């Protein structure tokens, strides 16, 4: 048993313990925090399972953004949960146990984890993505290559889903804002947590710079538009938490964000239209540089990654803003 196998087993055990603790926690605040821990562990597992890009995303999304979302929601609703009545526990438990048994039985037909002869590994597409992509695209990070070029249509669809979800949250949270007198004055903010504020302020440029690096270097190392957008969003969430909504809105007002949400999708779709105008198919980046198709590919991938990054970052920050400024109508 190698160290990696041991690590995998320990992490999976930690996951089970955490998941059970989450379901048992009566305080939703605790459940949300343990949820953050849960996704830190899954992200480590993703690294062990060779999925570094996924780990990057999961860390920023799971441990950062969704924890913040849940906790903000709890501030607007109720943070304690009623006890679960027995009439619900027994049937739900029964369904869960039976379904687990069924799935485990079905898993006997699955190839083992890491089996080199499994259908996933022997399918011809594997060779396309891993070998031919190097001649077609010259993008060493095959995840970015597949995401942005081979499966460009699919990714456009995903970005539109994120766009729609962002607009949905903005519409749902259109109602009353928190009155200004509820927000404590700046003097209070200045005195409390002084160390935290200075450190956050110092870290802010590093976070944004790193997001840019992840965005622009995504073709050569783990990274890309989705990851960069989320890291960028986390940076602005940190700033909002430490300096208040009014301060951050001076840099990035809600109105700009709403525009940016759409601009990202438009950049992506616009690249597709541009390639059509140049005589190729939709999202056929070769047209950007007919003499040197892989150069065109690199340019196209970078452009749409920028589009993805803009939309994701804008949606994340806009959702957080709209939850924070929500007033409670009682």
């Amino acid at each position, binding site marked *: 048993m190698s160290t990696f196998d041991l690590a995998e087993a320990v992490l999976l055990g930690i*996951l089970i313990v955490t998941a059970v603790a989450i*379901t048992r926690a009566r305080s939703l605040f605790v459940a949300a925090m343990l949820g953050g821990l849960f996704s830190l562990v899954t992200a480590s597992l993703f690294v062990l399972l060779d*999925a570094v890009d996924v780990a990057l995303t999961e860390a920023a999304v799971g441990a950062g953004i969704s924890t913040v979302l849940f906790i903000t*929601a709890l501030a607007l609703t109720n943070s304690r949960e009623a006890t679960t009545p027995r009439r619900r526990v027994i049937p739900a438990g029964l369904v869960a146990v039976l379904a687990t048994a069924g799935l485990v039985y079905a898993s006997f037909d699955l190839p083992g984890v890491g089996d080199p002869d499994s259908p996933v590994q022997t399918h011809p597409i594997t060779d396309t*993505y891993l070998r031919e992509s190097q001649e077609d695209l010259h993008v060493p990070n095959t995840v970015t290559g597949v995401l942005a070029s081979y499966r460009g249509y699919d990714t456009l669809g995903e970005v539109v889903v994120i766009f729609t979800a962002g607009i949905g949250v903005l519409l749902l949270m259109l109602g009353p804002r928190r009155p200004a007198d509820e927000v404590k004055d700046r003097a209070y903010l200045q005195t409390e947590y002084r160390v935290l504020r200075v450190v956050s302020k110092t870290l802010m440029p590093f976070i944004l710079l790193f997001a840019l690096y992840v965005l622009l270097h995504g073709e050569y190392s783990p990274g890309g538009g*989705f990851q960069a957008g989320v890291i960028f969003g986390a940076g602005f969430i940190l700033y909002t938490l430490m300096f208040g909504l009014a301060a951050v809105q001076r840099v990035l007002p809600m109105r700009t964000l709403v525009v940016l949400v759409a601009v990202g999708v438009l950049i992506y779709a616009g690249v597709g239209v541009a390639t059509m105008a140049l005589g190729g198919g939709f999202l056929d980046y070769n047209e950007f540089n007919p003499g040197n198709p892989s150069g065109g590919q690199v340019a196209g991938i970078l452009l749409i990654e920028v589009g993805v990054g803009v939309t994701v970052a804008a949606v*994340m920050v806009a959702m957080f803003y709209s939850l924070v400024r929500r007033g409670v109508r*009682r």
Partner: protein
Amino acid sequence: MIATHYTYWIIFALMMIGLYAVMSHGNLVKKLIGLNIFQVAVFMFFISLGRVDGGSPPIITEGIEVYSHPLPHVLILTAIVVGVATTSVGVAIAIRIYEAYGTVEEDNALARDAAEEGTQ
């Protein structure tokens, strides 16, 4: 069998713990947290399918021959971000329900609906 398949089994158990939380708990926010657990377990299942023994992350480097399959990574990468966007729609709906009913407990909200129907 156990050595090669236990990862799947734990992942299935996690899925079902998430499903259990969704089914048994009446609190809408708790249901969303349970749904998140379920979702992450599905992600792990996909990623474990793309794994290959002795493989490396699919970033092509000289001197490395065996790579894990990039396709599950691509699918899950986007699914994670889409997942958080849809979760936040769920959170927003839960907040609206709280504002309308004064509770995020399913049973209380349904009971209030039933009472209102009775008075009309």
